[in-house]
């Protein structure tokens, strides 16, 4: 029983410690400031906000999506 429990205890503190470290790092690094900026990082010049990036592989769907994007 002993070794297993010791391993688990060590693992627990490592995991818990890394969660705390991650949280404090996030605060210090400014990750939790200006949250709206965070939501925009997945867009860029070539795939900007407003650009639909997926559609069925047929002509009808492509033109429908283009129509929708314009409106």
């Amino acid at each position, binding site marked *: *029983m002993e*070794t*297993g429990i010791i*391993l*688990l205890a060590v*693992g627990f503190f490592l*995991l818990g410690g*890394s*969660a705390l*470290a*991650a*949280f404090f*790092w*996030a605060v210090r*690094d*400014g*990750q*939790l*400031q*200006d*949250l*709206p*900026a*965070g*939501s*925009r*990082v*997945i*867009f*860029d*010049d*070539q*795939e*900007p*906000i*407003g*650009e*639909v*990036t*997926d*559609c*069925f*592989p*047929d002509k009808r*769907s*492509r033109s*429908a*999506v283009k129509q*929708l*994007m314009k409106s």
Partner: protein
Amino acid sequence: MSAATVAAPHPSTRLEVLSSQERYDIDRSLRGPLLIFFGAAIFWLLIGSILGTLAAFKMNYPGLLDSEAWLTFGRMRPAHLNVVAYGWASTAGLGVAIWLMARLCRVPLRSPKLIISAGLIWNVGVLIGTLAILAGDSRSVEWLEFPGYVTPILFFAYSLVGVWAIVMFRFRKPGHVYVSQWYLLAAVLWFPWLYATANILLIWQPAQGSAQAAVNWWYGHNALGLWFTPIGLASAYYFIPKVIGRPIHSYYLSILGFWSLALFYSWNGMHHLIGGPFPAWMISAAVVASVMMFIPVLTVAINHHMTMRGNFAYLKWSPTLRFTVFGAMTYTLVSAQGSTMAIPALNSLTHFTDYTVGHSHLGLYGFFTMMMFGAMYYIIPRLTGWEWPSASLIRWHFWLAATGIVLMVGTLTVGGVIQGFALRDVEVAFMSSLHFASPFRYVRTLTGIILTAAHVVFAVHFTLMLLRAGEQKKSPTLLATPNKELAAV
């Protein structure tokens, strides 16, 4: 700990441009490894569907295929569970996680051989484990039926991916860490912890008596909540805004949802053991934590709904969005259902009935599997540089899968409630409760066939894709990155 130590500018000022070329390089570097992960996952999905459907048939016709020991229900059912959990869901989940991690860290894969080896070793482990279960060498621990010699194989293969993901994160391009990355990093750290703890306390140095059941359900439930759920949500948080081209409604809610999931989920498992021989505080804590899960679930539900608002028309035209939104809606439903099932008054009705079976399929299929389908429809064309060959095959896949899972969960839920009332009634004999459930189980078998058909359609389509039956991708916006000009650069 951080890559951005020296006087890093404020996150909003260091948004850099992710060029098409960069995206193309990343997808290109992931092509081989991820096609192995996705191909293997689809293979296991087919095997798992067949095993599950056969097991369902045996509920209707107990004498069916009982001549050979390996074809009996007692082996087929755990084989089904482990094949779909480790063969399909984990393999597909790892593939999607690797792709999202590389794209969000904006770093190409520099060690494809490492990831390819991890994929191969993982699948060898799943194969050995499945054959062992069918051969009768199974551990009677639900979710961990693979025998002890498979554990190190899976653990090693997993560690290669896990360590790679952390290294990738360490060397990411500077910028804001997106919410999907938080979920993925957490999943990458949670899974080895869960898997190792369960193996230490159940196999290596087994806990005594009823404590084994506590560990078992701590693991079983957390595998869903802290392994599959974060990968599924990471996927939803990326693909919904990315496909419709609109940032997530409230980034604040998404972060709140992440940290509250981390706080409450790991307490939930004990609600499987309500009424069992455990200290009251353990069960109470699990019930309270299960109800507290409404917080992370509502943050996700509100967020995704508000992001989609005004954009529901795209569901008709985007395969990824269709599968992902189906998964996201099911996530809300299945989580709310799970929270209510933990309330002892309702639990006493649904426990030990088909209601629970319906619930788990709603979670692993309606939520997670649909989410993975959505992600794969987005990722695979970008890996191969080819369009999906057929729009109608995608539509067939979606409608078969959606009809199958809705019908399956619907019948199991209604049948389970009837079964539960019959079990509770002292006037009703136990056998009668099974007779009440029986007609619903016929329909469930039918839904198994429908879902298997959906998976055959998907597997055929994936194969056609590999054979390059579609057209080469060139449209600049809808399927952006790899076009000829870029490839030539």
